[in-house]
């Protein structure tokens, strides 16, 4: 095992292999197209020659003498009978042929021109250019040179070189054989290459026309033995067999003096095979196929794309010491913890170095074997492997546990099972931001799911409808230290995206604190103790005594979890933004005031402790640190659960019950709206509809109709809402921000409203109508997707169909969006990944180019910023000036909306805000088109 400081690769240089090099590094020449003989042994000088490496266990490599996994494999080579063009380089070859002389090989430029170009190159080196700049410069040079039709050196007139895709060159229409091409490239002198963007030390142009083909080691193209005993060769081997076979025939024919035509045909065939060996997706030629018809995966295909070597095997790797299972919630866990099932814990191991001080402890553990019995019904970690000082790995079984334990020495490594307090990384895909992978401490638990506190759902964007998550066990002390300091959940409560909390209460937790604090209810001793039973607190506050009975108020109980000198004022989610704020005397109990750690007035809801919006959470994290914040969240979780359990909370379809007269009222509103729509349609038909400026007549009708129907939906919702009071569970959830919105409620109880596709009323389907149930050209409300019913009353068949149309758009939208935004993020990451903040406060990329002189113009970490501001001025003012500051401070409501807040309902109609009437429209008329 490697210890201490490891070596770093300084740089990697790329260059082209010359035929000489190919032959020099070759372990064997490959001449036979056959792979194995009848006995199943690899044939010498065949494609599976044992000199090329070993893939079968037990055998030794004939070149280096190592076994499987030790021998890296060795290259072989094929001598091509006739030269063949490398497909990947045809464009370069064309460039070279066009810009150099056909006879003397010089660059087609006068000395002065060349000098000027050289100056351009020097300037570029001076001023710095990137890959694209250099490429364009080389291209420009080639283009300028190819304009000269007469060689300035030898006066030879140049032919016109064209490329017949993929690999045939023509000069003035005559075919150039690869041999001729190679001869021309050979003539280009070294000093003319740099202006064309080629480094003569790394690549001589004639090497672009292959005479020897490197054969990759067998380890690169292992053959698989099927159960039937048949061998199945790799795609590359298949392709090489083709190459060898044709190469052989070509050589024979050529040597036998076969007619030119036949030789040329074979030559072209060889070119085809070599081309597809490199890239089987070359345009212009049919891809080489497997017997089954599947296109072969050759060299380029192996590297390219998402499943290619680069993105799939080099930029990301498969790992050990990881687990994946379904997740479920557990409010009794701290936000820093993760519950790991015992079964997983026994598979996942942590390496522990045996030292003098832990020898006895580990010896005991090893004695227990790989599956120690439970003690007092508690999980006991065991040991899976012990690694000796010489690197031998011993599996611990029940049988040898005792003896291995005896033999345990300092310097051994024990791979013990996961146990409580171990540090692991926990992750849910898609990993869109850094909070998608955080460090948790382990709690080994029974059953089979991973469990964590609900407050951690938002950063992972997790729910429990079958989501699975991954867990990785850290294997080194350095990794564990870094994870604990940088990646622990509590360090990520504030999001770097907007400087507010991403970890916070959701759903029932918010309902719970709402029930606990709204209008400051009273709880008797039994209830109080039940609520507080899981909450960490010091002492019960002094009870309120009413009629000789002791009561505790919700505010008192909530104050127990607040830090002692906590101080804040804000408006809760339930605030209706009255014109004149009554502050402490708010009718809705929406003015939250906390002084010295005591909640004085107000309701604790989403604005206080919710993820994305929680003000109390935000302030505690900022002022008291991550530890205090973690404790607060853990306590709030338990307090909220306690409160909601004492109160009892449920929602059902009867929450949307509205009285008879309300239904009648809604019905009236809707019929009236439908009638008004038909009036508009009537007016439109008669041509008396007043055209809106800047709109065509059709558009005017649509706008008016949408307006009428939108208003009708809102009105229906309001009528329904009037009968749904604050005691209604669904309303509590919507108002407190726990779940759902008033819009959802009004759609359930009142009216669903107009369905829309692309922001317009439904119109497609049959000719001139949406469904055959309507007359052609019907523009009325029902015919174009207005749903009068509510979710509760149920939809008519046509309404249901319209509703599905709207729903489908939503689904398509989501599907398209995920892929588009995923690609955008990949591009953003790829462009920005190299930027970092340097010691001097500048932001630079790895090439040391300054991108910003000061990060974000003030150097402030968005994560530590106060919702974007560098410093919380109000806070400082109140610190320094005390209560005087109240007058100065402005409780500005900063718009702070995170995700999930844009529950812009897909069924929602266009909310046409009553914009001011358009004064003037320069677009004269417009006219119906």
């Amino acid at each position, binding site marked *: 095992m490697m210890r201490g400081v490891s070596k770093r690769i300084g740089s990697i240089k790329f260059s082209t292999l010359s035929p000489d090099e190919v032959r020099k590094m070759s372990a064997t020449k490959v001449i036979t197209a056959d792979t194995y003989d009848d006995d199943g042994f690899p044939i010498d000088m065949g494609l599976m020659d044992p000199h090329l490496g070993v893939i079968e266990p037990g055998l030794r490599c004939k070149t280096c003498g190592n076994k499987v996994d030790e021998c890296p494999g060795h290259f072989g080579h094929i001598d091509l009978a006739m030269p063949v063009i490398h497909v990947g380089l045809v464009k370069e070859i064309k460039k070279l042929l066009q810009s150099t002389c056909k006879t003397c090989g010089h660059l087609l430029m006068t000395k002065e021109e060349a000098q000027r170009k050289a100056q351009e190159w020097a300037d570029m080196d001076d001023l710095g250019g990137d890959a694209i700049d250099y490429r364009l410069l080389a291209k420009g040079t080639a283009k300028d040179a190819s304009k000269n039709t007469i060689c300035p050196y030898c006066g030879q007139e140049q032919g016109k070189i064209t490329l017949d895709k993929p690999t045939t060159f023509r000069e003035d229409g005559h075919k150039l054989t690869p041999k001729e091409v190679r001869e021309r490239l050979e003539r280009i002198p070294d000093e003319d290459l740099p202006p064309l963007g080629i480094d003569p030390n790394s690549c001589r142009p004639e090497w672009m026309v292959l005479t020897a083909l490197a054969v990759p080691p067998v380890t690169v193209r292992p053959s698989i033995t099927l159960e039937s005993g048949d061998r199945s060769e790799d795609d590359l081997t298949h392709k090489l067999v083709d190459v060898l076979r044709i190469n052989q025939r070509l050589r024979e024919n050529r040597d036998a003096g076969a007619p030119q035509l036949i030789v040329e045909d074979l030559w072209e065939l060889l070119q085809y095979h070599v081309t597809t060996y490199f890239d089987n997706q070359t345009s212009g030629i049919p891809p080489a196929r497997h017997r089954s018809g599947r296109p072969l995966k050759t060299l380029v295909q192996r590297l390219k794309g998402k499943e290619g070597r680069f993105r799939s095997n080099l930029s990301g790797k498969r790992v050990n010491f990881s687990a994946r299972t379904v997740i479920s919630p557990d409010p009794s866990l701290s936000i820093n913890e993760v519950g790991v099932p015992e079964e997983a814990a026994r598979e996942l191991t942590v390496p522990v170095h045996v030292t003098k001080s832990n020898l006895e402890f580990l010896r005991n553990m090893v004695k227990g074997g790989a599956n120690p019995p439970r003690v007092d019904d508690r999980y006991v970690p065991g040991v899976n492997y012990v690694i000796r000082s010489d690197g031998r790995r011993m599996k611990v079984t029940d049988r040898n546990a005792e003896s291995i334990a005896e033999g345990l020495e300092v310097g051994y490594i024990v791979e013990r099972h996961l146990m409580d307090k171990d540090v692991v990384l926990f992750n849910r895909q898609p990993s869109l931001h850094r909070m998608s992978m955080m460090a948790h401490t382990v709690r080994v638990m029974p059953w089979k799911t991973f469990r964590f506190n609900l407050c951690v759902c938002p950063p992972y964007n997790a729910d429990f409808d079958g989501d699975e998550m991954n867990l990785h066990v850290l294997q080194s002390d350095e990794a564990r230290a870094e994870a604990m300091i940088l990646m622990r959940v509590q360090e990520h409560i504030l999001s770097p995206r907007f400087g507010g909390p991403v970890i916070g209460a959701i759903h029932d937790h918010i309902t719970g604190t709402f029930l606990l604090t709204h209008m400051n209810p009273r709880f008797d001793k039994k209830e109080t103790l039940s609520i507080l039973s899981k909450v960490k607190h010091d002492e019960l506050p002094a009870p309120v005594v009413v009629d000789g009975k002791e009561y505790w108020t919700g505010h008192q109980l909530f104050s127990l979890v607040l830090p002692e000198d906590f101080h804040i004022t804000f408006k809760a989610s339930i605030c209706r933004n009255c014109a004149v704020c009554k502050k402490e005397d708010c009718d809705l109990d929406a003015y939250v005031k906390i002084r010295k750690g005591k909640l004085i007035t107000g309701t604790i809801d989403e604005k206080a402790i919710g993820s994305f919006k929680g003000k109390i959470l935000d302030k505690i994290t900022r002022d008291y640190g991550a530890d205090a914040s973690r404790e607060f969240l853990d306590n709030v979780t338990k307090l909220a659960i306690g409160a909601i359990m004492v109160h009892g909370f449920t929602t059902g379809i009867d929450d949307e019950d509205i009285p008879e007269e309300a239904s009648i009222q809604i019905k009236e509103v809707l019929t009236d709206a439908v009638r008004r729509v038909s009036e508009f349609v009537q007016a439109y038909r008669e041509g008396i509809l007043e055209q809106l400026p800047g709109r065509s007549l059709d558009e005017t009708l649509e706008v008016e109709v949408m307006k009428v129907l939108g208003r009708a939906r809102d009105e229906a919702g309001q009528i329904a809402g009037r009968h749904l009071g604050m005691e209604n569970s669904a309303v509590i959830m919507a108002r407190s921000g726990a779940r759902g919105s008033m819009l959802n409620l009004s759609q359930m109880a009142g009216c669903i409203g107009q369905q829309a596709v692309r922001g317009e009323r439904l119109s497609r389907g049959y000719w001139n109508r949406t469904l055959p149930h309507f007359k052609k050209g019907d523009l009325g409300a029902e015919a174009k997707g207005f749903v009068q019913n509510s979710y509760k009353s149920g939809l008519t068949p046509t309404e249901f169909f319209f509703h599905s149309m709207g729903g489908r758009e939503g689904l398509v939208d989501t599907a398209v969006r995920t892929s588009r935004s995923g690609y955008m993020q990949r591009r953003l990451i790829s462009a920005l990944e190299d930027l970092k903040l340097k010691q001097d406060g500048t932001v630079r990329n790895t090439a040391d180019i300054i991108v910003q002189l000061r990060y974000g113009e003030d150097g402030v970490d968005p994560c530590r910023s106060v919702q974007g501001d560098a*410093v919380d001025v109000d806070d400082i003012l109140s610190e320094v000036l005390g209560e005087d500051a109240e007058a100065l401070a402005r409780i500005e409501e900063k718009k702070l909306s995170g995700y999930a807040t844009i529950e812009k309902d897909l069924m929602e109609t266009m909310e046409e805000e009553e914009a001011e009437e358009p004064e003037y429209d320069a677009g004269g008329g417009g006219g119906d088109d």
Partner: protein
Amino acid sequence: MARKDTFNALLRRNIEAAIADKLLQGYNSISDIASASPADLMSLGLSEDQAADTLNKLGKTKKESGSKKAAKKEQAAEPAKKVEFHRVVKAKPVTEIEAKLNDMLDDLGLELPRRVVVTIGERLEGADIPEVKIREILKRASEKYELHKMDANESAGILAAQSIGEPGTQMTMRTFHYAGVAEINVTLGLPRLIEIVDARRVPSTPMMTVYIRPEFRESVEEVRRVASRIEKTTLLDIADIETDIVNMKVIVHPDTSKMDQKGITPEQIVERLNKDRRLRGQVKLEEDAEDKARQYIVVTSDEPSFKKLQGIVQATRDAVIQGLDGIERAILRRQPNGEYVIYTAGSNLRDVLAEEKVDRTRTTTNSIQEIYDVLGVEAARNSIIHEASRTLEEQGLTVDIRHIMLVADLMTNDGDVKAIGRHGISGRKSSVLARAAFEITATHLLHAALTGETDDLDGVAENIIVGQPVTLGTGAVNLVYEPKKRPKEANQ
């Protein structure tokens, strides 16, 4: 070919063939020769007289031919002397209290961002607070500011990319009407954000907000006049066009009310139409025989060909009578402060800014490239920040402006607007491996082999590929702990 052309061109400029031949040995184009000094020419074997003469001829011919470029240059050169450059300071002037605070900060040797100073100033304005307390406030603010600074070696780039990319999944795909101007469609949500980072040449829905200079902005009439001046108006918009096949002519009946609205006279139309290549000299204004007040325009065909007539109809129809290229529609809107603002569908910043009554300091477009072309990179950078944050905000997503600033700064880092993607920043990375891992793998690798590129493994992607720690965060520092041997062990 080029050589031959030059040769002929020289002959046309009265230069002897022999001299021209000599000149061409050294130069490729006339402009090259003209810019050379007599001594240069003499080195090519010309006598002094010949050289001077040649240059004279070339110089002269240049002026005579009235090459537009040269003429323009000279024109531009003259007033250029008069142009006074003054720095446009857009920042608010430092108020009294801010100045006081700044002095105190200097005094204390502390530093605070301007924004914080402004906020403190706002809060303290008018309040009677002893100086000691103010100093205390500044001290504390500065303390907090230092604490809130980002740590060195933080991967600011990844932070920004994630912060902008992550909310992308929550955005809508749909195009919405622009809030406030229902008539103009504007791309919003994810497609717009992608458009911005792509640095597209033309946005899918170009749009301008044209402000009017303070002295006119509250007059509907004035603003309306500007609006109709910039809005593209074709003849079809203001007149009915009729084809008289018998007499082989096209008759245009102007709609007087529409024309009045736009302030166009029939004479203007005739003038405009006569400028069209296809209609030149064929347009006449005629009066109605019965009603003298009614005028109509007649376009006659000069040859009796239906094909020609058809061409004339087309040309008449499409003739642009008024307005700027690209401005499809202009709509007036009254702002809450009483001023009128013109919103346009389509964008043409350069020409709109040239309009007299337009407030050049505030008028803007949503086309970032256009802002870059007209106003430069700094403006383009601001535009990227503005457009991106507006798009995100409109969707109800909060993203710290520092992230957007970083993206904008990177996109405009080397003087022009570069896209985020393989044709822009990612394709220009210094590392071969990083480029290969992003897109178009094979091409990058092959090209690297030809140019003999060296990958210095400085970046993130390439270090991950070779399997070593990256150079960000904790990977950027090297710490080696060398435990001191305890004396006891050392003895052993």
